[in-house]
């Protein structure tokens, strides 16, 4: 199957398989990957999944192709649309939303995400765009993290600035808001989750053609490595054909 699908398509499939029927998903900027995953999940195993596309507030939009921007006019018309301030109300309420899709300039061993600064905040070496909505991550039932950059610079022991809170490093009973926290991390190399004991990031599957030590070397902290790390099952014919129905321009194949 090598070469028959792109890395982004594989990542969309991994994310889609993780989404459960009935969940309400919210995504932010650059929505192509999570939007593709949501549509795929709805088509295959989660017919009553709901998804909200970022700033547009559109709920379950089904455009002919994958828009690059979360505020793309092509997202309208959608079956329903929440004005953005209403999305913010529901994000704060927490119990209305199940899965928050997020990423970061830096992602750390406990799943904290940083969209603000590398280096000290007051004198950054690198200034990121800003936190947008990801402070809501710990209020949502669970979060999933995705990134196109699996490098030691992105995957760090501790983020320089917490924009999107991950798992607490202390005792489980201190977990604020009693939500699940980050449950999945999807990268071009692997799918990861968190060890239930110390809640540090754990390698779950390696993508086809990727070695376990390659993932460990690309991670700037010590990953929890189970004795057996299976390969990520590649996309099935059915998954790929569904995915490509809404991606005629190959946004996920660039």
């Amino acid at each position: 199957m090598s070469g028959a699908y792109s890395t982004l398509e594989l990542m969309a499939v991994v994310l889609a398989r993780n989404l459960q029927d009935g969940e309400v998903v919210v995504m932010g900027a650059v929505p192509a990957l999570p939007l593709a995953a949501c549509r795929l999940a709805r088509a295959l195993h989660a017919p009553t999944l709901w998804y909200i596309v970022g700033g547009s507030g559109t709920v379950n939009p089904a455009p002919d192709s994958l828009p690059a921007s979360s505020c793309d006019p092509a997202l309208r018309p959608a079956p329903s649309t929440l004005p953005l301030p209403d999305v913010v109300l529901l994000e704060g309420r927490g119990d209305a939303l199940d899965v928050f899709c997020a990423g970061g300039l830096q992602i750390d061993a406990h799943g904290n995400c940083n969209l603000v600064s590398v280096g000290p905040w007051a004198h950054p070496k690198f200034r990121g765009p800003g936190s947008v909505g990801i402070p809501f991550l710990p209020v949502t039932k669970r979060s999933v993290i995705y990134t196109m950059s699996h490098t030691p610079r992105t995957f760090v022991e501790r983020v320089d600035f917490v924009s999107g809170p991950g798992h607490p490093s202390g005792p489980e009973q201190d977990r604020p808001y009693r939500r699940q926290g980050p449950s999945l991390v999807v990268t071009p190399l692997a799918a990861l989750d968190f060890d239930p004991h110390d809640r540090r990031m754990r390698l779950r599957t390696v993508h086809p053609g990727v070695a376990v030590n390659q993932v460990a070397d690309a991670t700037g902290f010590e990953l929890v490595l189970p004795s057996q790390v299976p390969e990520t099952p590649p996309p099935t014919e059915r998954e790929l054909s569904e995915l490509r129905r809404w991606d005629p321009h190959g946004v996920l194949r660039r």
Partner: protein
Amino acid sequence: MSCEFLSPSEAVPRWIAPGATVGVGGMHMTAAPMSLVREIVRQRIRIGRLVTSPSASLQADLLIGAGLVEELISPYVGFEHLGLAPAFRRAVEGGSLAVLECDEGSLTHALYAGAGGLPFIPCPPGIDLTDIPKVNPTLYRQVQDPFTLEARWAVAAVRPDVTLVHCAEADESGNVAFGGFPFTDRLMALAGRRVIVQVERMVSQERMAAHPPGTTLPGFLISAIVVAPGGCHPTAAPGYYGRDEDAIQAYLEAARTPEGFQEYVERTILRLDEPAYLEQVRGQQPAGVS
């Protein structure tokens, strides 16, 4: 108060005092009131505090790059799939821009507070686990919940002296209607002491009356309306035209250096008045794209 119909070059100096707190709408690369923003750049009006929607792009980067912004309240300045905001990055990394760090939740609630006359408002949950309030004592303070006695973060109300937004349509009484997505722009207009609205076109009162609740603003809130068809360019105006990605990329390419930014502003903005800019855009773009 009655609303005036003005050109961009008249509206901007009339209602934006140097050093004012200015709210600028548009979310990501959609519905930014670029005709008004370009006019601020031409007239070099200094902004004491720039407030954006939860996600700004060119409207913020251009004003920051032109050296017109002292303080910024914005949860995001960037260009989504096209990359980071070059002038914003340079200004923060170089220490020439003061950032009042915030997020989408606090800003939206701060605008509700500003619109509703509350001095401050408790923040929604989540922010307490981030580093955001710790680096921004100007906007965030800890308060005690009077009911549970627990400590909570609160955010100060945000009230722009003047809010600039794009709407699709206006009628002759100054009522305006948002096209597509009102984003937080409508809320920011409700919080603004003055509001300048840039519109694509004028419509009859009958057509205005047909818009659903929550998508319009009455003329008594609006100080000035600027009719600027194509005025969101190069960002999108839903129902009218999409974003001009080539033009945005040309900006991002040019703005990689301070010299490139200056040259870009000189060539695409300062050399033309706003009617001439819009004339040039209409000449280049197919009409009726949505």
